[in-house]
């Protein structure tokens, strides 16, 4: 049998007949572009990349792969941070870049239907003339796709008030691994059957490829009030967050950056005017009806001052608002200055455990002689302890790995989760036993098998193998008491 990159000729010709010669990428140099997502620690070039432009083409591609027993890995913009779009050995990546059309925006039903490759911000831009927007706003929103957001159940700074992706997805047109097309949910209707939309969102490409997505849109807020509070210590900022929530306020966003992050940002081209000697900066935003917002902002300022804020800045204009946000939004980009590599971690803990967990993370970093820069959605208890390192230094990389594992264990021990918004992908499979019992993992495998009986759709993601190195690495420690 003749092959191309190890794939049978007959498959390549089926793929070409589905999408056209230009959209079946198979020369090794071009494939390098697809060797990783934004979690670059894992890399493997796919055997081929196929770029369908619509559901019908995607369905034919899936069918061809299924018939040849070749694994399919769906991929959006590749901004994911858990290696979820990493190629599988011997597999083909199905990219959604060409499925980038907004099919419908209906202000009368506050709904939009988009192809999965539409960028998050492009959807909000299309909805803006109607006074609407798409609420979930991951930090990568100018680059990431709605399909990718669906796969990861993405969050974002404003999810504190608005909720995450899952809340806004009302229907999905899905290509199952065997190429069959089904609509789940849709037309904003009450589903008369199981909540398969809810199940599919966050399934990380393991159940199939969602080619069209129906989303709920929400009104643009009439007004916003944005504050930036500067603290001497991270703990003070954490206390301010608890105090704001305890006061019964519900900001749209509560975001913290720590000293290391501020330093990185201020030394970069993204300098936002945060004081470099500060221990932490807290961005607070309220939105809604203009009346009363000023009062809420004032109450939040008061909470910050009582928690020891040395300064509370208030944005008076749209430009000032962007300036206050800049240090937070550009944090990840700025960290590139600190070292060649950055491990963007992601975990959640109950909000009240933040100060204690942050202190434990700081001790872990010290013990492993690593630099951690914290950026987090403090209102949600969603941490991003980011570790800067140099991958070429194998010994340092090993310390990063060991510290990461300890950080995950600390978060789980505090009643939290190993990932709040970045997903498990390939990167966190090894931690899944920290949160699930063998029986629960088996049930998750069973659910995947319902959608993908031959395990051809993004295999080797999310679920740890039944046997293998991960089992030896982490024994199931018993159920953490904090889980329900």
């Amino acid at each position, binding site marked *: 049998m003749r092959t191309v990159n190890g794939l049978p000729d007959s498959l390549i010709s089926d793929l070409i007949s589905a999408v056209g010669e230009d959209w079946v990428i198979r020369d090794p140099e071009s494939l390098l572009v697809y060797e990783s997502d934004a979690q670059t620690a894992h890399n493997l070039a796919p055997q081929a990349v196929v770029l369908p432009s619509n559901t019908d083409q995607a369905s034919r591609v899936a069918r061809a792969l299924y018939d040849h027993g070749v694994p399919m890995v769906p991929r959006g913009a590749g901004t994911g941070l858990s290696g979820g779009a990493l190629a599988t050995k011997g597999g083909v990546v199905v990219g959604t870049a060409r499925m980038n059309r907004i099919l419908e925006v209906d202000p*009368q039903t506050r709904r939009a239907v988009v192809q999965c490759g539409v960028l998050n911000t492009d959807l909000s831009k299309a909805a803006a003339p109607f006074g609407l927007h798409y609420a979930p706003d991951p930090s990568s929103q100018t680059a990431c796709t709605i399909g990718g957001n669906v796969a990861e159940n993405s969050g974002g700074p404003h999810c504190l008030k608005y909720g995450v992706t899952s809340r806004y997805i009302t229907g999905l047109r899905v290509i199952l691994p065997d190429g069959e097309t089904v609509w789940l949910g849709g037309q904003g209707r009450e589903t008369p059957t199981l909540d398969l939309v809810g199940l599919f969102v*966050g399934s990380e490409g393991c159940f199939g490829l969602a080619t069209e997505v129906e989303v709920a849109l929400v*009104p643009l807020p009439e007004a916003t009030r944005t504050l930036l509070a500067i603290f001497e210590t991270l703990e003070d900022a954490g206390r301010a967050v608890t105090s704001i929530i305890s006061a019964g306020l519900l900001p749209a966003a509560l975001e913290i950056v720590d000293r290391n992050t501020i330093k990185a940002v201020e030394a970069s081209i993204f300098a936002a005017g945060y004081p470099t000697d500060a221990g932490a900066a807290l961005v607070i935003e309220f939105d809604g009806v*203009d009346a009363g917002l000023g009062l809420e902002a004032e109450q939040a300022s008061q909470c910050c001052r009582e928690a020891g804020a040395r300064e509370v800045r208030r944005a008076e204009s749209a430009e000032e608002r962007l300036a206050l946000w800049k240090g937070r939004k550009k944090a990840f980009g700025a960290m590139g200055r600190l070292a060649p590599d950055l491990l963007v971690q992601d975990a959640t803990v109950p909000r009240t455990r933040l100060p204690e967990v942050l202190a434990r993370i700081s001790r872990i970093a010290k013990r492993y002689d690593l630099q951690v820069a914290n950026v987090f959605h403090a209102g949600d208890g969603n941490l991003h302890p980011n570790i800067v390192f140099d991958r070429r230094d194998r010994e340092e990389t090993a310390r990063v790995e060991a510290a990461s594992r300890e950080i995950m264990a600390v978060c789980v021990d505090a009643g939290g*989760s190993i990932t709040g918004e970045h997903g498990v992908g390939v990167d966190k499979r090894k931690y899944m036993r920290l949160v699930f019992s063998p029986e629960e993992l088996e049930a998750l495998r069973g659910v995947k098998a*319902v959608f993908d009986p031959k395990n051809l759709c993004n295999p080797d993601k999310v679920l740890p193998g039944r046997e293998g190195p991960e089992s030896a690495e982490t024994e199931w420690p018993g159920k953490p008491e904090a889980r*329900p």
Partner: protein
Amino acid sequence: MSRRIREALEGLVGSGAFPSDGELKAGGWDFAGGLRSGPVVVAPSTPDQVALVMGKASEEGWSVLPAGFGRWLAGGGRPDVQIVVSTRGMRKVLEYEPADLTFTVGAGVSLASLREVTSLHRQWLPLDPPGGLEGSLGAATALGGAGALRHSFGGPRDHVLGLTMVSGDGRVLRWGGKVVKNVAGFDLTRLMVGSWGTLGIVTSVSGRLFPLPEADTTLVFGGRRAAALLPAARAMALSPLPLGAVELMEPLERAEGEGGLPNRESTPAGLVLRLLGSGAQVTEMEGRICSDLAGEYGDPDRFRGGDSLAFHDGLTSWEDGAELVMRLCLLPSELGSLLEEAEGIERLAKSSGSGRGAGEAGLDDRRLVRMSAHVGAGLLRVAVSGVTWDARNLASWVGELRSLRGRLEARGGTLTVSYGPPVLVGELGAWGRVGGEKRIVAGLEAQFDPMGVLARGGRTS
């Protein structure tokens, strides 16, 4: 048979787990709703006990109906049940951390008890499902039902952060957690929410709370018919104002107790708007709404603070006592069509009415059919009372509703029967069409309930 089942289960969970007939009667258990033979009612007090019961039932092939306080046993239309597993034995608040705005409770904790605990810290679970506040969190989760507050807060799928369940074959499984954001593993929490107990029995629930709004005001604009208020209702549902609820009702609930409405003969329909937020925000919203609507619809009735809360608490029992409750759904922009369809149901009710509805409830003919719409969701609930369910009438109702369901499904909509005479539900089916996803639904049922003890009479069979 039921004696054998009872003895077998007693051996597993002890005789204390079986409420007496007297207790069930006093608790308002609704067996009349259509369970064919007297099932064994067991109320385990731990998930492990539930697992023992389910393991045995699965082994023996005994059919099981999960329940909370047994107030809605015919929901979902499954009369053939040998065991009712009630969660009423699991009624502890397991964890409540006010500063985290999260809770974990046994599935048998009622919404009212949870509110009692959280209101001390000026927090609430903004969830008002049909069935009233005396219903359990487990039932609210399993049924996935939402009330008027869905307009702003969504439903159980948005509130539940995690849950413990016992699968049909007796596995204790925990999904999600107690943190607001969590994407570890597939979202089995959402799969279980609204699964109507076809996959397992929910034994505990973790959820998200919100700060109690400082101000709570309800405005009620009256009208002759719901259809006449529809333009205002749609305008409000599409308003950029963050309204708490937008409900269109015909008739409005009558004056009863605190927070009830004055009797309004001339304007029996009503547009109910709930405004939640800070004092300044609510005042601002009220002013703007009244200046938009009062010219055409007159001055609204106003309920503030506790009266507003009581008014909406009352709406949660809107379905109680009806003989047939249906949910009709199209796109929100097509709500007018649903109101027209409801008129057809009204005509049918008149032609098959016994007159009881009129006589006993003191209502005129038209009130054989009541309607309540979640305007933003395009969902119309229709409650029917006072019909003589004889063979002839049943046949015409089945025929009419089947054809109505067909019309709605052809437009991408749905008609589900939440409650109804067993023969009607049996003939019509509670859920309607399951489309291309049927294979997946059946696969999931088989995963979690391999022996089919729960799913019997469920979505796909």
